[in-house]
């Protein structure tokens, strides 16, 4: 596991990662300057920055997952050949996202300190942070699971000629942009809607929701690893 994590972390030295990591504090600074120089409201800056910073987290995360794309297409990559369980590999990717989460938290903290005297501002509390990370793991696990299941089914579903066009639309088709699209879609659209439905309409407590999210994440992560290891097919 340590070795897997080491190689996941080495990826941070790529230019793409450095740029995204660099953009996050720049955005924070820009937000702070906009408030002081142009009078943009602190609430707007906080919401906008949170969203943009989150895009940073997702972009970096997508880069880590990119090495799984070959598992569903025609290339080969080293992680699929090493004699280690795929579950470790998936866990190492999650752990490798910690530095970027730390950057996110630091930037957010900087904004909360800067705007601490602003009245009526709602900052994330501990439960919200826990939920956010839980939903992030859920989204990633769902995505890998979806790809692995799709890949395992791919050659078993023989479609009639008239329906072959569906292959072109198939949700298991994987490339760099589909990874980004899926993660953005899940995180930006589905996740907030999902948590809103639970907290607003079903009135479930945040702690129970967090428990459900983490339990579902664990099941999906394990399923994704099993599918990758036993049924991946490319």
């Amino acid at each position: 596991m340590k070795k897997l994590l080491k190689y996941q972390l080495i990826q941070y030295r790529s230019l793409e990662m450095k740029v995204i990591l660099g953009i996050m504090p720049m955005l924070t600074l820009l937000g702070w300057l906009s408030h002081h120089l142009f009078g943009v409201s602190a609430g707007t800056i906080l919401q906008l920055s949170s969203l943009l910073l989150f895009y940073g987290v997702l972009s970096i995360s997508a880069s880590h997952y990119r090495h799984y794309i070959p598992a569903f297409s025609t290339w080969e990559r080293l992680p699929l050949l090493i004699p280690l369980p795929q579950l470790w590999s998936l866990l190492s990717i999650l752990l490798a996202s910690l530095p970027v989460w730390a950057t996110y938290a630091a930037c957010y903290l900087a904004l909360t300190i800067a705007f601490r005297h602003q009245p009526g501002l709602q900052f994330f509390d501990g439960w919200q942070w826990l939920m956010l990370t839980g939903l992030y793991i859920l989204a990633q696990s769902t995505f890998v699971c979806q790809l692995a299941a799709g890949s395992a089914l791919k050659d078993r579903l023989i479609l009639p000629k008239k329906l072959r066009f569906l292959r072109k639309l198939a949700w298991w088709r994987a490339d760099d942009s589909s990874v980004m699209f899926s993660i953005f879609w899940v995180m930006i659209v589905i996740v907030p809607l999902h948590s809103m439905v639970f907290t607003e309409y079903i009135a479930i407590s945040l702690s129970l929701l967090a428990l459900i999210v983490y339990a579902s994440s664990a099941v999906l992560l394990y399923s994704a690893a099993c599918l990758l290891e036993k049924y991946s097919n490319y």
Partner: protein
Amino acid sequence: MGEILSVSNLIKRYGEKTALNGVNCRFEQGKIYGLLGPNAAGKTTFLKVCAALIMIYQGQVLIDGVRPGLATKAKVAYLPDGDYFFDWMRVADAVNYFSDFFADFDRAKAEHLLHELELEKSSPVRSLSKGMKARLKLAVVLSRRARLFLLDEAFDGVDPVTREKIIDIMLNTFDQESTMILATHHIDYVEGLLDEVKLLHRGEVIREIAADEIRQNSGQSIGEYYLEVFRNEKAT
């Protein structure tokens, strides 16, 4: 000699297309096999099944008595035809990666091969030419003391002089405990290496013959024998 790989009635279909159509064959320890055939004969699919990259198939494949999977990955060294390394890697990272994850990796041999193949440790992988990437793949894979080597078009992109050098190294360092399967349609590249050839055509093994038998019985080279067999196949 013990048997390292046995394949019985292996069938692999991609949708309606059949890539392997009932392959039956055995591979013994201490031998270098040529898995030869034209394009789309099923060579790459066969190697991927053995490398535990394709897990859904019909039939039985056993490596040292075990179905390809997590356990066999430690014994099998696979060199794919396509891309292999991460873009962020330097040559030294690729060597370290193999050293970290494969217990049978021989670092001293890797250092020797890097030197022989003129690979700079500090060179970024993404800046290497196709030929240099092929050299690096060969260097790291051949540095393992694996039980089974699966090399898919290993010499594609490698210049003739380097190819000669690598073949020399392979002949001199080949361990009698190992087995090597070279899948290629460039027979002239591997002619001198092979102990036995298996000809694959439309997903089936159509001939299995020792290299010496070809040379002694018909006085042909493996390349000439290959051409004769596949010309007849085409005619029928």
